[in-house]
């Protein structure tokens, strides 16, 4: 790859290496539902009381 393109490529990846994990982590942190955590269910017996 020629030098200017190589520098552009490096700059792009420096930005992406910061931006994408930040986007991904904030997207997961502010999501409506969390993975693996199911809403609490009230046992039927207790609910009847």
């Amino acid at each position: 790859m020629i030098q200017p393109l190589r520098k552009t490529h490096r700059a792009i990846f420096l930005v992406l290496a910061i931006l994408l994990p930040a986007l991904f982590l904030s997207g997961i942190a502010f999501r409506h539902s969390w993975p693996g955590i199911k809403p609490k269910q009230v046992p039927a017996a207790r609910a009847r009381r």
Partner: protein
Amino acid sequence: MSHQYQAIGWNRQKRFYDWTVIAGVFIYVGLFVGLSAFLFPYATAETMIIRAAGSAAFLLLHVVLCIGPLCRLDSRFLPLLYNRRHLGVVTFLLGAFHGVFGIIQFHSLGDTDPLVSLLTSNQNFQSLPDFPFQQLGFLALLILFLMAATSHDFWLRNLTPPVWKSLHMLVYVAYALLIGHVTLGVLQSETSPVLVIATALGLATVLGLHVAAARQERKVDTTKPTTVPSGFVDACAVANIPEKCAAVCSVNGERVAVFKYDGKISAISNVCRHQNGPLGEGKIIDGCVTCPWHGYQYLPDTGASPPPFTEKVSTFQTKIVNGRVWIHQKPNPPGTRIEPSQIPGSEVHA
């Protein structure tokens, strides 16, 4: 390598590559739909197909993005690079399938135009969990379309390699948009951690490989060769260049490939005219420097492709002093013949 227009210059390797990709896509989609039908029996067929095509496109884009750095780190991955553009086109087709079926399912049943509905139905740009993720996917699809449409060598020649390469660097913008599309879309409602972990692993792999390859490349660029007033720089030791192969060194920020063949040394630009491939990682086959990416060939002493081809790269003057190769810093115009330097004591091999 071709001197006339051909839609696709088919050969055995290309056919094998493409059939493997097509078979891989069908197996993936089949497995995805089969497993989904088993795990989520209430999901509609349309939903399963939309998800299968979308996830296949996303997965394939990861593969496409990993091939470049893998080849820089280990030349054994070079065969994957050969038809990377075909992978890109398949990625676009799968993405288009996902997009079109998604628009039909979610935006075509109202009284608004489906495209208008896609672009205007959700405008919660301030909310991360409710962000209009479909617009991000649409933008990424437009970029992938632009790249797929210009992927042919016809466009490469007409746009010139630097412009074409810059245009195709938009793939990173498309990737960023798709990470947003997935994170703010399906991952917002998905309660299983599998997709979250898979996306995180994919992102870490792409970023990690590119950072590792960039670190390796930087070493070559930052090595400062010894320069003498006559304009020659110390490139490498003759003994360190394998026969019919090259050593790559950096001269004034540009890379030069120093080839050893038949008891002679010649230096040419490391950048192939076709797609900026690394000529120094190629070999001399049938007397020609052969690019490892797509097989474009150049004569080592002139930097010109053998007739009837017209591609030319810059050549550099060389001399051998005390077993080391010295290269003149100033490149000669592409195609200029430079007498190869004779390796002392090698006349018997010539």
